[in-house]
């Protein structure tokens, strides 16, 4: 597990316009800049809300990241159902 690297990727996409643009152009290539496990890379690239959350991504990194991918409040809540 490399939660730090996973969160770093998300932080860069959320907060740095130039990095966000690079990510948008080729997410898979962008993710290679981070030391991620296969599962982490998959979760990030698929914007798998539930898996990213259970991996421990901070909620205030995760929610802005999912908003960039147009995940609605409803779908976000649905993805986390049962984890309360």
């Amino acid at each position: 597990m490399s939660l730090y690297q996973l969160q770093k990727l998300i932080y860069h996409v959320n907060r740095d316009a130039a990095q966000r643009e690079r990510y948008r152009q080729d997410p898979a290539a962008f993710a290679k800049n981070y030391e991620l496990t296969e599962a982490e890379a998959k979760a990030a690239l698929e914007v798998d809300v539930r898996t990213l959350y259970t991996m421990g991504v901070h909620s205030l990194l995760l929610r802005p990241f999912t908003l960039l991918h147009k995940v609605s409040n409803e779908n976000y809540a649905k993805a986390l159902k049962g984890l309360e």
Partner: protein
Amino acid sequence: MPIIFAAAASHAPGMTAWTEAAPKEQAEDFLANYQQLGVRLAASKPDVIVALTVEHWANFFLNSMPAFCIGRAAHYDGPIEEWLRVPKARVPGDAKLGTELLNACLDGEFDPTFSDELLFDHATFLPLHFLNPGMAVPVVPVILNALTPPMPAPKRCFAFGQFLGKFLDSHTKRIAIIATGGLSHWPGEAKHGKINVPFDKQFLEYLANRDHARLTAYSHEEIHNEAGSGGHEIRTWIALAGAVRGWKAELLSYEPVVPWATGCGLVEFRQ
């Protein structure tokens, strides 16, 4: 002049970004109180506002996360959130006071970090939108880590506030001091939308009773379990209680606003 104004306020982004999602009367009452607090702040004619605040990954990441950070920039831009529905602005800073505060800390009992460039997210910008109309008064941000553990303990935040208060009380400038954050909320979490009203009311009661023993006895776990990941922000209120420890806290408003997913509080401290 010493500290001449002190208040604590929540900063739920829904207050401006999705105001109308809240029940009309509840939103109007709370926001009217917020604006009136701003009128009283202006009437106190401060030279500067010291903001005990937090941030949400706007400036800091896990490569370097300060427990306390004092801003000493000439200005601060915000808000970083495009969707906050608050006009972007450049907030004047007070680099001189920031530096003096920092030096006093390093010469005394605390070792905060400092920053000459900070962006304001809604945590600082939303309260200033209501309390500092036109961003007329310069601001010195003092950021407490209430974002990610390990965080400074509430008792440490109280002591830090007490230290800052002592310094500011002997300053020549007229100083308003505000705290921002809380109360209970679980932003972006599976429990998002939950508000722990009994916790919030008890916290407000401790403030009103100047029960500093109880305020400093909160543990990280207790806040986390009872008030949520967002509830950690009450550390700024606890620091403010330390800064104006002889003052009486008056509750202006408490509204558990479900669509804003936050127990929203407004407290003014009076000498």
